[in-house]
């Protein structure tokens, strides 16, 4: 079974996304900020990461840049998931190593479609 780490400071978003991604046959772990996510990645790199932008402690962009410098940190497919959805922000996320980008709000079809785009499902 593939694994997905959901990183978002909103418990509600983690729960909603978690259920959708679980239904796509992923083992799901959750983190509330970038630092927590980094600790979980060091334990075990997930196959996929759904990553929020604005979070306390360590934001999504800083986490992504740090992740890509980690041992094995180039492996996870990172799907950014943010309300910052103008072209500049999306471009910055992609240049920083994201594989796909979901603009919030999202639904199950969007997650499915985006995961398919990057070959996760």
């Amino acid at each position, binding site marked *: 079974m593939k694994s997905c780490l959901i990183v978002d400071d909103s418990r509600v978003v983690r729960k909603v996304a978690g259920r959708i991604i679980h239904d796509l046959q992923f083992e799901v772990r959750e983190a509330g900020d970038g630092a927590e996510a980094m600790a979980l990645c060091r334990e075990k790199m997930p196959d996929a990461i759904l990553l929020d932008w604005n979070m306390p402690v360590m934001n999504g962009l800083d986490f992504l840049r740090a992740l890509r410098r980690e041992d094995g940190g180039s492996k996870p497919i990172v799907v950014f998931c943010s309300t910052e*959805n*103008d*072209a500049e922000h*999306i*471009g910055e996320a*992609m240049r920083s190593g994201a594989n*796909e*980008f*979901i*603009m919030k*709000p*999202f*639904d199950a*079809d*969007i997650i499915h*479609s*985006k995961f398919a*785009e990057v070959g996760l499902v």
Partner: protein
Amino acid sequence: MDETTFQDVAELALNGSGQLIPPSKSYLIEARLAPILRREGLAEVSDLMGVIKARPASKLGTEAVAALTSKTTGFFTGRETLTRIVDHVLPMMAPTAADNTLRVWCAGGAAGQEACSLAILLEESDNEALEDVRVEILSTDISEAMTSAARAGQFGHFDVQKGLSIHRLLKHFSRLDTGDWQISPKLAGRIAVRTHNLLKDASGLGEFDVILCRNVISGMARPMRSRVLLNIARQLSDGGVLFLGEGETADGLVDGLKASRDVRGAFARDVERSALTAAA
């Protein structure tokens, strides 16, 4: 909705577009007609049917048929077929293209998602065979609401996130202040849009080398499916091919329209245009 009203609506849809509305789908009727009811200040579907019956020539009947029939679709639906058309079928046809132009028709093309997807693939193609030919795409739909949307080339937040990668979205669309996304002038320049009912003669649209009519005929009554396919097949150029949706077939519906020998999964005329007839 009472039984009489359901029958009236089903008959209107059948005659207007060939679409069969089974009783199990009656719940869809109210949802689809709601915008028209609201605009006309009518309370019930039966009121609308009363107005349409009293004024059979009015535009309202056509609009109701379109609302009942037209389906929305997504970007890159049936991706494999679209890729094959751009990577193999059009390049194969290119050397013999009349006036160096290949014409593609998305029949029942909703708000233009299928046409856009083809235009994106053409923009991205580096196939040498396509360098010296123009590929024109026509998207038609029965619904004027759909074709106006296709002409505007604007798509919502949820639409652009289904079937489109973020790379393609950023490359081929720009974000509007409303939060919608506008297709690039380059894509728009490849696509023409017309309102057209597939039950009607299509000779005014011209000839096409590739016709896509996917997931359109499956909901139709059999004689209407024949009629639609006949109208479409008459617009196929010599050597032109027709793609239907997955699980749809032209077999037994039009005499002279057969599985293509050159293109897997497609249909082609094997007689002169004038010899095509609806199968008995």
